[in-house]
């Protein structure tokens, strides 16, 4: 194949020589030539050379006849055509992002027709809640912030005003190989005044790369390294493979003494990481990454061992101990600390992942729920939310440009556009609470469509049998939760703020059922916090579920909705943040009182089965009846 390229280059030079005469003849008729002294023209070969070359290249591109005559290898022309086709196909999805106040900018890429676009956190950070986005149709669109992921350096924004935006096709970044061609597109140095993206073409230099964070934020895990030029302004822009599929979001490069320009090593966040975070990113939140609750180190023979572990971590609870060797994590073998960090970095906190460890030559598989990497206040600080204060209106002279380039395009526009103002709702802990409300409504509406108990806010009485045919009665009221099974009676009072582990060893089943009643009877406003989290794989192995979170005086419930039919699959309940889970899964929905209601509640405490409650009757009271 070497000969292919050589012959292409040779043929260009040959054509240059051959065409030289005709080109000269052609130019002889122009004023331009006559302005030059003939002797000077003859003597100045370099000048001729430079003038001729662009013409030859023009001929190459514009006249197919030329290629037919020439000896250019068809493979070269085919490769060229493929490049042109790919660039033509994907360019409309590339976004030039400008801060709302006209300070700096970056790049992005549209991924849905309704306008969701990916970019870097460090691009939107400081750009304001509303931005201006240019597409290659030459038009400038308004855009609003959706979510930010300060750890992964990802942000989701939404372009407004169309429902038919050109969206990029997502690829599979795990299939990317070193040596693959890669197109980086975007707006380096904010060059494009017509929003036509700049295209730099290179190869993948490395895959599954780990790039250290600044502190604990802006960590690039499992990222793609390219030699395609990545420069300031490219941040947030797409990396495409040679089929025009989006494989990553360009975000950083290795720079040293050469200044902040391309130095041959650029890094893109893998699109597969973003797929894991996709629903989280649509939640309007400040999205967090995960920690195992344990750190690892490379020991002798390149084994990776647990160096530290928190006793309240899920990993510890599931059996992982100091010194255990990590064999695989999330299905990938672990041979270095970087590999471990690569895997940990691509999953959201709260996900449950398989982990295989070895102790005394014996392998064990456990499913570990990942805990949050940061506290809420750490995240808010990163997002610039020290505490919720009204948006500070930019004062003249107060703006520090983040890029060295002044941005010549954007007009100062600190005020959000009137017609889109409602699309931004501020709330502590959220990048834009508006989008969380949308997701909450979507799930609650689906729930009330099948199980609408909103007029039944009084006392609920559930009766049925356990698996061993013991009768039980569950009473769910505002004042407390009662559970009568056989001869035993358990109580959870709701008159104090103390939630207890009742029945003992369940992790707080009665408190969990209190959450259950509040959610189904449409009283989610009685929770301290209630929000949409994102999606995850149920119990690490089952189907993908949407997750709602509800908290009340330190207790937390996580609600799981099947992503495809939105049916409620169950909940996980925690008496405190680090308590062992009380997991309730709903089986066999039945119709009770004209509404869908779980036929069976399968209760586990951690991984230990506790009981199965088969529900036979449901007595629901309205508040009036309760009072009587």
């Amino acid at each position, binding site marked *: *194949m*070497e000969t*292919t*390229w*050589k012959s292409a*280059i*040779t043929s260009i030079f040959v054509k240059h020589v051959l065409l030289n005469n005709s080109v000269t003849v052609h130019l002889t008729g122009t004023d331009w030539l006559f302005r030059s002294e003939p002797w000077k023209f003859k003597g100045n070969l370099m000048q001729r050379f430079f003038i001729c070359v662009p013409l030859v290249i023009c001929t190459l591109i514009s006249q197919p006849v030329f290629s037919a005559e020439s000896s250019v*290898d*068809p*493979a070269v022309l*085919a*490769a060229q055509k*493929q490049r042109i086709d790919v660039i033509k196909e994907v360019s409309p999805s590339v976004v030039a992002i400008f801060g709302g106040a006209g300070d700096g900018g970056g790049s992005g890429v549209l991924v849905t027709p309704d306008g969701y676009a990916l970019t870097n956190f460090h691009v939107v950070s400081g750009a304001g809640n509303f931005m201006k986005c240019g597409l290659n149709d030459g038009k400038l669109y308004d855009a609003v912030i959706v979510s930010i992921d300060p750890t992964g350096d990802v942000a989701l924004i939404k372009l407004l005003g169309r429902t038919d935006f050109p969206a990029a096709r997502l690829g599979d970044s795990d299939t990317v*190989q*070193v*040596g*693959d*061609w890669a197109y980086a597109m975007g707006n380096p140095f904010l060059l494009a005044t017509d929003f036509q993206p700049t295209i730099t073409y*290179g*190869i*993948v*230099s*490395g895959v*599954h*790369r780990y*790039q250290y964070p600044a502190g604990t934020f802006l960590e690039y895990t499992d990222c793609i*390294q390219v*030699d395609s030029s990545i420069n300031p302004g490219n941040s947030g822009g797409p990396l495409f493979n*040679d089929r025009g599929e989006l494989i990553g979001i360009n975000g950083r490069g*290795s720079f*040293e003494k*050469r200044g902040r320009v*391309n*130095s*041959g*090593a650029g890094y893109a966040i893998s699109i597969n990481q973003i797929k894991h975070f996709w629903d989280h990113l649509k939640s309007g939140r400040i999205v967090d990454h995960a920690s195992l609750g344990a750190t690892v180190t*490379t020991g002798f023979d*390149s084994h990776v061992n647990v160096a530290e572990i928190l006793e309240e971590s899920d990993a510890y609870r599931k059996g992982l101990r100091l010194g255990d060797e990590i064999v695989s994590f999330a299905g990938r073998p672990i*041979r*270095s*600390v*970087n*590999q471990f960090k690569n895997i940990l970095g691509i999953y959201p906190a709260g996900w449950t992942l398989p982990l295989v460890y070895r102790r005394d030559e014996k392998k064990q598989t456990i499913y570990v729920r990942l805990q949050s990497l940061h506290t809420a206040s750490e995240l808010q600080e990163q997002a610039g939310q020290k505490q919720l204060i009204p948006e500070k209106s930019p004062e003249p002279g107060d703006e520090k440009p983040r890029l060295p380039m002044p941005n010549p395009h954007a007009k100062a526009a600190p005020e959000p556009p009137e017609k889109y103002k409602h699309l931004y709702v501020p709330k502590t802990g959220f990048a834009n609470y508006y989008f969380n409300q949308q997701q909450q409504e979507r799930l609650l509406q689906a729930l009330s469509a099948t199980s609408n108990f909103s007029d039944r806010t009084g006392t609920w009485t559930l009766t049925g049998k356990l698996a061993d045919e013991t009768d039980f009665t569950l009473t769910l009221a505002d004042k407390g939760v009662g559970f009568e099974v056989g001869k035993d009676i358990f109580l959870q009072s709701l008159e104090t703020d103390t939630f207890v582990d009742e029945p003992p060893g369940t992790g707080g089943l009665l408190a969990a059922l209190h959450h259950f009643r509040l959610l189904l009877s449409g009283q989610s406003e009685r929770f301290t916090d209630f929000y949409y989290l994102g999606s995850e794989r149920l119990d690490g192995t089952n189907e993908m579920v949407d997750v709602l979170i509800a908290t009340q005086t330190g207790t937390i419930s996580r609600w799981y909705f099947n992503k495809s039919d939105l049916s409620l699959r169950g909940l996980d309940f925690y008496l405190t943040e680090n308590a062992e889970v009380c997991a309730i899964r709903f089986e066999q929905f039945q119709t009770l009182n004209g509404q869908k209601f779980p036929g069976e509640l399968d209760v586990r405490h951690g991984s230990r089965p506790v009981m199965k409650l088969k529900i036979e009757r449901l007595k629901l009271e309205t508040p009036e009846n309760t009072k009587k």
Partner: protein
Amino acid sequence: MSAVKSVSASSQSTIEYALPRLVKIFGAGGVKNLYGYSTGFLVSPQGHIATIWSPVLDTDRLSVVLHDGRKFEAEVLGAEPHLDLAIIKLKSERELNLPCFDYKEKVTAGPGTRILGFSNMFKVATGDEPVSVLHGVIEARTELPRRRGAFELSYSGDVYVVDAITNNPGAAGGALLTYDGKLLGMIGKQVRNAKTNTWVNYSLPIDVLSKSIEQIITGKFDSSEDQKKPEMDAPQRYRPVDFGLVMVPDVLYRTPAYIDRVLPDSLVAKAGLQPDDLVVFVNDELINSCKTLNTELGQLESGDLLRLVVRRNNQLISIEFQVPPENK
């Protein structure tokens, strides 16, 4: 379309072939502007590695990590400082049988040839991660203007200049290959053109290195200890002390040429040089270390005019005298 695929298939198979033959080298350094890491490539199944001759190797604890994460201690077998070349060997009690490049083939290539550069630039790869790959084209095979104010290199000779940014921190000692997998050269140290403040991306051609690699491996090379000191090759007619100069102890790779003492009544004492003066030029040659001072003085002939420029505080002081007859 199939033809397009085969273009990339060719480089893909070259990458697969090359990556197991590249190694990550970790040694001395780590302080400001001195990188404690570099790259090398295997040139024998027994674990001989060609790499850049640099301060990274100046340690008793040289470690080499193969593409698959296997870690070895290594020792410097020999060096050819004029070629910026060193050969190190993995220490192993067992017989090794590693994949390696054929450095004897002496492949050459001209401008326009497509190349791949392999190196552990910026120490991106650790453990079992393979090194980074860059693609580009040979722009020229030419001599770099090695002189003061241009490129300050110890190597003089042909290099391949490429359009890929191959010469980054830690990249020196990496391999330059053609698309079809032929070893073309070794990526050189980072050099900056002092005048234009530009960096050049170049590699030392394998046809230039090949003979020395073979000689060092086969042990036919002249004493490797001597070879570490470039001045040993050059004539040694005069030493600083012959003119009355006692320099500071030469302990660093590049010890600045500070005068420690001036012998009383010597030529330089009469000319007014003082302790703590920094010798910066000898007859218009830049002196960047005690070694280069020795080299320059060693080349003088009896009767030559010796012009020394020293820096004292922020002043340049120039002295001149005639070189006395050699004191055998």
